[in-house]
């Protein structure tokens, strides 16, 4: 996973982006125990599923440290967007956008928040792509953090690391399906912070299963 900035962006790179990159140059030792790792569990709510044309309505995240969800660390931010609201906000029940943050401030806060933690999310790739849309303008085209997708982790724990994903019933690994399976009540579903919270609870449970299967270190977890 390499980060390859375009030369033109590099010149424009703001300080907060440089700091972010600098923090991520430190690599986590492979043998670090799972309970010593810092995670940021995140979720975004967007205007739609098109990573090129849709945009982020809200960003929710919570940190996990020492295998504990730190409630105080929970955030929910609403970036400014010039795009009109489409149908999706209705689905997500967002009536209006409040406390909107200017885009640069939003990106700055996100990067400071995620720092060099391991990023966790359900279908995390989508959320990161949506975020990158905004960070691109600041010369950042890829996140440097290690990432864990809870859907992939769940599949891997069920079926082993060598599974062919095309043989898997993906619907059994949706956030809703997994929450149901792990008896996590679907509170505040479809708010960014609420989904981040659900994902964090799911992740704590998956980590226990992983540990029971002999996955004890950072390297084993991240593969």
């Amino acid at each position, binding site marked *: 996973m390499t980060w390859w900035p375009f030369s033109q962006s590099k010149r424009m790179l703001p300080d907060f982006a440089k700091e972010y990159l600098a923090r991520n140059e430190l690599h986590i030792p492979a043998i670090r125990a799972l309970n010593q790792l810092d995670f940021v569990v995140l979720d975004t709510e967007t205007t739609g599923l098109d990573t090129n044309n849709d945009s982020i309505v809200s960003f*929710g995240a*919570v940190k996990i440290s*020492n*295998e*504990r*969800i*730190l*409630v*105080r660390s*929970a*955030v*929910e931010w609403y970036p400014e967007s010039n795009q009109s609201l489409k149908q999706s906000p209705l689905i997500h029940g967002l009536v209006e956008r409040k406390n909107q943050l200017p885009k640069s401030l939003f990106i700055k806060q996100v990067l400071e928040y995620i720092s060099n933690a391991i990023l966790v999310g359900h279908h995390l790739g989508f959320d990161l792509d949506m975020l990158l849309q905004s960070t691109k303008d600041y010369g950042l085209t890829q996140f440097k953090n290690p990432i864990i997708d809870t859907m992939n982790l769940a599949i891997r724990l069920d079926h082993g690391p060598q599974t062919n994903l095309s043989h898997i019933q993906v619907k059994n690994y949706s956030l809703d399906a997994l929450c149901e399976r792990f*008896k996590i009540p679907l*509170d*505040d579903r479809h*708010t960014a*912070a*609420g989904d*981040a*919270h659900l994902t*964090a*609870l799911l992740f*704590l*449970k998956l980590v*226990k299963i992983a540990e*029971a299967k002999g996955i004890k270190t950072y390297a084993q977890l991240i593969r």
Partner: protein
Amino acid sequence: MANVIVNRVAEFLRRFPPFSFLGKEELEEISSAVEIQFLEKGETLFKQGDAPQAHFFILKEGEIHLTESKASGEEVKEYLDEGDVFGVLALLGKRAYVLNARISQNSLIYAIPVQVFEEILATNNRVALYFAAGFASGQVVVRQDLSQGQKARGALKNESRENSLLIFSDQSEVKISDKVLTCDSSNTVQEAAQLMVDADVSSIVIVDDSFRPTGIITDKDLRSKILAKALPLSTTVSEVMTSPVITRKKDAGFSDLYLTMIKNRLHHLILTEDGSDQSNVCGIISDHDVLVSMGNSPAVLIHGLLNTQEVKEIRAIRERASKMLAYYLENEVAMDFVASIMTEINDVIIQQAIKISEKSLAGLYPEMQSVRYCFLTLGSEGREEQLLRTDQDNALIYENVAEGLRIKAAEYFLKLGTAVVEILIACGFAPCPGEIMASNPKWVQPVAQWEKYFASWILTPTPEALISASIFFDFRAISGSKSLSEELSLFIYDSLKKKPVFLNFLAQNTLATPPPLGFFRNFVVEKSGEHRDQFDIKARAIRPLVDLARLLTLSHAIIGINNTFKRFERLAELEPNYKELFSEAAKAFEILIRIRAIEGMKTGNDGRFIDPESLGKLQRQLLKNTFVPIDELQDIVKVRFQLDHFGQ
């Protein structure tokens, strides 16, 4: 900035004490400080002897056992359930953990940093009280000061409940008697007085030929207009009656009637068909009726009882006493006060029932009127601890009669006892399923036979005898000749002195039911780990305490103190080294009978079986704390009566 996650946490915490006592901001502050941890079955959160962590815990979901490691193995001390707070010794005492926290089912816990909570502890009295009272789990190893617990319960009680209105009953309940005692103007005052005595009323209305009211004579008139003026008994009523009379229509509103009485200083108001004195008398209302309907103060209720011999009205007054009881219980009025008021009311009811019964039999058994007898109440009523109308337990003792009168006496007293019991049933006191009542010939006996009963129980303490003893040892004279019950007490005292080993049997009986460990979800958890879905508060907590108090006072050769509070009080004086334990036991007893009464009131029965689900967290914890003195008293009894070596 509060967000959905903080709110979610707050919403959970708010459901459970002590978080339920926090203000919005405090709750938000605590909630954001929460750290959520998931633990798998088999893991251990902390171990006995570990230094305290920087957090204490609330179980969000799952199941955790607090266990104690002993030489003999690990013993579960407590089953934690959703909302239980634990690991608080770290919070309070900054000491090592005294128990292990074993995860028995996958569990989600909320960890709260001690320092955040310490700030709130310093500023929020109710939270501080909660912890001081030892409500949080895992504190059971230290004996709880139950008075702190009670204080806390009072302070922590939902403040918004408005109960004070309960003491004022519905105005529509005012009783207007439609049976009006009347006579005509030619009757003498002596005849009128006799009619009033026979009917047991305080007034008589004088009517003309067509039943229209022309005047009234009351108790007061007899006193002030006749006796004080030394008028002859042959004076006719028309000479002294108050006339004309003020009348009102029967279906007039209560306030109209009441105001008429107040304005005209009337003790009795006559009601007629059309409201004028030119129509038929159809009812009378007395200030006594008004007084009774005005409220449920004990004095009013007792006054009401003393002035009626109508079973229906007695029953109605007892219903109102229940309302008053509910008010007292909810307002944490001292239990010994409540118990003595309710005992007084129950006693008056029984005394009235006896009066009614005596009256109904007097004509049939003139020769029995001079035979002394005593009506005894037994069990909880005998101990002056009956709050709700639980089962009747009563008996009758009469003096030994000459051979020739024996059959007649047995017949009369059985009829008398039966009549009393029937009236009590009609007043809502359920009959005793074991037939321990004054309607059972076995329990209506002369002194000689009662002495035989007690002698045989004490001499051959079979299991049945021990059960009987536990009921009959707490007898109390309600009405009649108290010297008979005293005679019986002395006899028991002498018998016990001659056969002290009886107490060892009694002692063994008190150990039969150890209190449970506590509650878990909707179950009662036994020490064996077994779960039951109902808690028999009588058999498992109240009776053991009553039995222990009885046993220990008997072992000090004290006869005649029946009340469990008073017994513990006396024991505390006699055994100063256990003073604290005895006062804990008395408080535990108070809490138990209060909970039973509240539950009974809620469910409309005798409150004996409690569904753990219906108990609030606070009540469960309070209840659990009462098990501690029971446990300790049972240990003392075991040693004192050497029950480990006492053959079965």
